[in-house]
């Protein structure tokens, strides 16, 4: 489309570089609003159109989005904290002290990581309660509910493994108390406890194991399961709504 106006906007958007990245115009028409959804990787998890029921704040309370935002904050602040922290008994505690006292924004970043972790444990649980009390686990969403329960457990494990890392009295005794509970199970208790701690007591081996689980294993599991969780929301027809009760059960739901 030829244009006589040479505004700054058209200078930026009408060239091969811009058009190689954004393959449609500004989403001001319904066609472009649809195209942007399947042209953008960041948006493609969304359907082009959603039930207006989806947008009712009193229905979802935004709990799932809040949980995901908190997880994203945790990934970003967590990666930043890794620059300043070594998981050894000699260094762990002093690293946190240095982080708090001398590194720019160190205290703020650690505070955000800590509070976001606590809030995520709370909001994932509340999200699960919302989904239960609105009956949103029903067909065809049975399996996504199961994935959600696993995500809750992984959230708890992520928070639990991170709890030991500051290596202060609070974290040391919390992990000792928790692993002692595991150790008290009949028959297999001692073996599971040994597997968790890597030694008879909470010590350097436990710190390394918890660190590896916290920064590598569990975040990968979490990320993969979040992907499955979101993808299945699409495949199961978006957010649940009361209009579904009349829908033909045998019809395959895709959106």
């Amino acid at each position, binding site marked *: 489309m030829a244009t006589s106006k040479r505004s700054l906007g058209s200078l930026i958007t009408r060239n091969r570089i811009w058009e190689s990245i954004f393959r449609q115009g500004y989403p001001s028409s*319904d066609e472009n*609003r*649809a195209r942007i*959804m399947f042209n953008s990787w960041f948006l493609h998890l*969304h359907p*082009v*159109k*959603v*039930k207006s*029921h*989806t*947008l009712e*704040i009193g229905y979802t309370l*935004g709990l799932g*989005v*809040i949980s995901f*935002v908190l997880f994203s*904050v945790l990934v970003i602040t967590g990666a930043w904290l890794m620059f300043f922290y070594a998981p050894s008994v000699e260094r762990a505690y002093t690293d946190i002290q240095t982080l*708090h006292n001398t590194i720019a924004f160190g205290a703020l970043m650690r*505070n*955000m990581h800590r*509070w976001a972790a*606590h809030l995520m444990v709370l909001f994932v649980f509340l999200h699960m*309660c919302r989904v239960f*009390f*609105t*009956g*949103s686990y*029903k*067909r065809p969403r*049975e399996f996504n*509910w*199961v994935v959600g*329960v696993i995500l809750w*457990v992984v959230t*708890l494990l992520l*928070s639990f493994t991170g709890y030991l890392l500051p*290596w*202060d*009295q*609070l*974290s*040391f*005794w*919390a992990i000792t*108390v928790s692993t002692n*509970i*595991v150790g*008290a*199970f009949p028959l297999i208790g001692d073996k599971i406890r040994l597997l968790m701690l890597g030694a008879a*007591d*909470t010590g350097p081996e436990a710190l390394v194991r918890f660190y590896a689980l916290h920064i590598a294993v569990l975040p990968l599991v979490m990320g993969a399961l979040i992907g499955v969780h979101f993808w299945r929301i699409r495949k199961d027809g978006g957010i*649940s*709504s*009361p*209009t*579904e*009760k*009349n829908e033909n*059960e045998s019809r395959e739901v895709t959106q």
Partner: protein
Amino acid sequence: MRGENQVFPKDPAKTYGLMELVKGTSPMVDKGPEDTVMAWPNLLILEIVVTLGTVVVLLIMSLLFNAPLREPANPGVTENPAKAAWYFLNLQELLLHMSAALAGLIIPVLVIVGLMAIPYVDRSKSDVGVWFASKKGKRIAAFSGIYTGIILIALILFDEFIRVRSIINQPEAVPGWIIPIVVIGGLCFLLYVIIRKWQPTRREVLVGFFSAFFVCYFVLILTSLFFRGYGMHLTLPWHLPPGAIPF
């Protein structure tokens, strides 16, 4: 009408003509009026607002309150009380009243498996998307929550001030296993018998039990967090020893 799944009836005031013959059915056959909006911008604006709101609240929290850092870990100095992270305090509270394997392994595993089983137990779609299933469901949830809260607090007080173990201590299986299982099982059965009086659907029964789970989850955490002092004995929040709240 919004939310109703109306079928378009034949309008006697209109004339219908044959335009073209095609095979198959229209996507709107047997369906009501469409009730959808474009995801851009309606959904995306909401997502951005919730994202920004969450980050702002988190930033303010992080500027006002420092994350805790106590003395360096010292295996020689036991913390008293030694508390787990707050989200495991419900299990630590259970541990005070029964054997470790029951409180730390069997009950959590039953809870997780029970939660996963919910959609395979309640298979009807009749009240999908309705908070607490129905008016009756709301009453059942409220009753079940209050019932659980009162009994749970009474049980915690009983085991602190009268103590099951002062009545019967031997053999270990009686206070550790038999009494807790009989009490929990009996109270669940009693709750079920009472809920049955409403003549509920299967989902409404589940709403009652989930409501009981929800109340247990938080009452146990709050008890252990704010009311357990030296030696994990009950005390009032303003009498807690310093450092008893793990934040």
